[in-house]
């Protein structure tokens, strides 16, 4: 039997305790979301109290108007549509920049890359004006369109395609296939790992986006979870923290589930640039 390393075990216990403290904000939020308001701020704090129930969730999801169920649907729509378009655009553009030759290719790509550094503050007023002129202000499309043409997704796909050997593509050309056929039948099927990374990163950015809805949406029926949560407080008046914690948990849970399912791809995608 493998000997248990006592030092390693001790370190594990210490870090488990540190980890509990580190994640305490989440733990406190979830347990508070299940309690009535007068039981949240007891001291000494305890996880379980007398009158725990799902009442807060029932309120924020179904009884409040507009409900968080409604915000959930808005956010899901924006996220799924954005992910779909982002993948389609970045996989084709990424492939074009990586494997196809045309004049100005690298210069255009450099331009795309540079714009990744531009802070939202520079773009927000013009995008606000542009979306208003396009008649898209205060629609969910205002949250989708500006972000779908993501230079970052294109960058990730291009980096991935650069590692694909040219031989596969060349053999397709020798067979006389058109570039689109080669792309569709030979390239797309092998792009899965990079596509998974683009999916999970886009999902996270769109689901968690707060700055775009804050500026581009002002009708509460079109709020996303982040904006709905931030404005929920003003309606409820003084801190009804139990309800806020339930709403906050609702806003986080789908993202956390997706994260657990795709964490390998997400971590790979986010740490990728760091070891150039």
């Amino acid at each position, binding site marked *: 039997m493998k000997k248990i390393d006592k030092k*390693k075990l001790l370190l*594990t216990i210490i*870090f488990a305790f540190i980890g509990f403290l580190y*994640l*305490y*904000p989440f733990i*406190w*939020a979830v347990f508070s979301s299940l309690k009535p308001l007068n039981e*949240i*701020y007891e*001291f*000494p704090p305890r996880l379980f109290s007398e009158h725990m129930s799902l009442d807060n969730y029932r309120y924020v999801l179904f009884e409040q108007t507009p409900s968080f169920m409604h915000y959930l649907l808005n956010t899901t729509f924006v996220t799924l549509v954005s992910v779909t378009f982002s993948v389609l*655009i*970045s996989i*084709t*553009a990424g*492939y*074009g*920049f990586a494997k*196809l*030759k*045309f*004049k100005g*290719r690298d210069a*255009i790509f450099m331009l*795309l890359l540079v*714009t990744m550094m531009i*802070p939202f*503050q*520079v*773009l*927000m*007023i*013009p*995008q606000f*004006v*542009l979306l208003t002129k396009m008649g898209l202000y205060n629609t969910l499309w205002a949250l989708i*369109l*500006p972000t*779908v*043409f993501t230079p970052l997704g294109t960058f990730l796909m291009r980096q991935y395609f650069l590692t694909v050997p040219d031989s596969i593509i060349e053999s397709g050309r020798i067979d006389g296939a058109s*570039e689109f056929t080669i792309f569709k039948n030979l390239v797309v099927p092998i792009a899965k790992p990079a596509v998974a990374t683009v999916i999970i990163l886009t999902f*996270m950015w769109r689901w*968690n986006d*707060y700055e775009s809805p804050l500026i581009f949406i002002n009708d509460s029926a079109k709020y996303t979870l*982040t*904006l709905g*949560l931030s404005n929920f407080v003003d309606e409820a008046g003084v801190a009804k923290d139990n309800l*806020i914690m339930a709403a906050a*948990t609702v*806003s*986080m849970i789908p*993202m*956390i589930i997706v*994260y657990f399912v795709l964490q390998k791809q997400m971590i790979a995608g*986010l*740490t990728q640039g*760091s*070891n*150039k």
Partner: protein
Amino acid sequence: MKKNNVGYLFVLPAVIGFSIFILLPMVFSLVISFTDFNIFKGISGTVFLGLDNYIRLIHDPIFWKSLFNNIIFIVVTVPIQIILALIVAYFLNDKLYGCKFFRVFSFLPYVSNIVAVSFIWMALFNPSQGVINQVLMHLGISNPPGWLTSFHSALPAVMIVSIWISLGYNVLVYIAGMQNIDSTMYEASEIDGANSFQKFMKITIPSLSSTTFFLTVTGIISSFKVFGQINIMTQGGPGNSTNVLAYYIYQNSFSYYDMGYAAAMAWVLMFIMIIVTVIQFRKEKGGA
């Protein structure tokens, strides 16, 4: 590989989209920074101001206060994040049982939306009822800080939240870097009798220098982007103690509707970010 103009078709959607939603707005933003444009006047009512907006911000004390807060933010949070992450990464890199479990959970703050995180921390920072002050008072500290409600403790509170959010990301990047270190270097040092601490200081840290550089640059850029937690937790207060450039630009755009002025400030912010990044790159090249 022969030239293939069909490549233009492949990149066309991305290029058109980015031209409309990024390039065009950039130009528009630059142009209005020289005017007094706002959404109500429209383009017809706009007056050309030349460099007035830029001169104005040089004399704007809140601009300088906000920039100063950004600098404090960087100088405090970036080193703390990096040192903490280095230490935690060391242990989470197979020095514990269940490392994968720890790593997966360490990332949770990073993937959670800023609004939810802000409200949770606001409740924890509540000066009278929140857990943090309750614990401090029980430990005998009779006058714990007012955190988000006090002029001197608000920015530290916001910085604590930022460090908490980013730690998981920094840890995971360091772990990826550590796993790239050649193990033969450690083995050779063991033959020379090196202990864990010496190995960490003499091999691990130097080998991670490019990772550290990367995290420094991304940490600085992220610091300039901090917005959501300020809009929710403090709105720049109390008394501008937590106002930062990103937030002040937002205030000028959508509270004061002084959009030309805000645009000028946004461009100044962008140039500051570029300069700081270039300085970091020069330092790295010089030291390497």
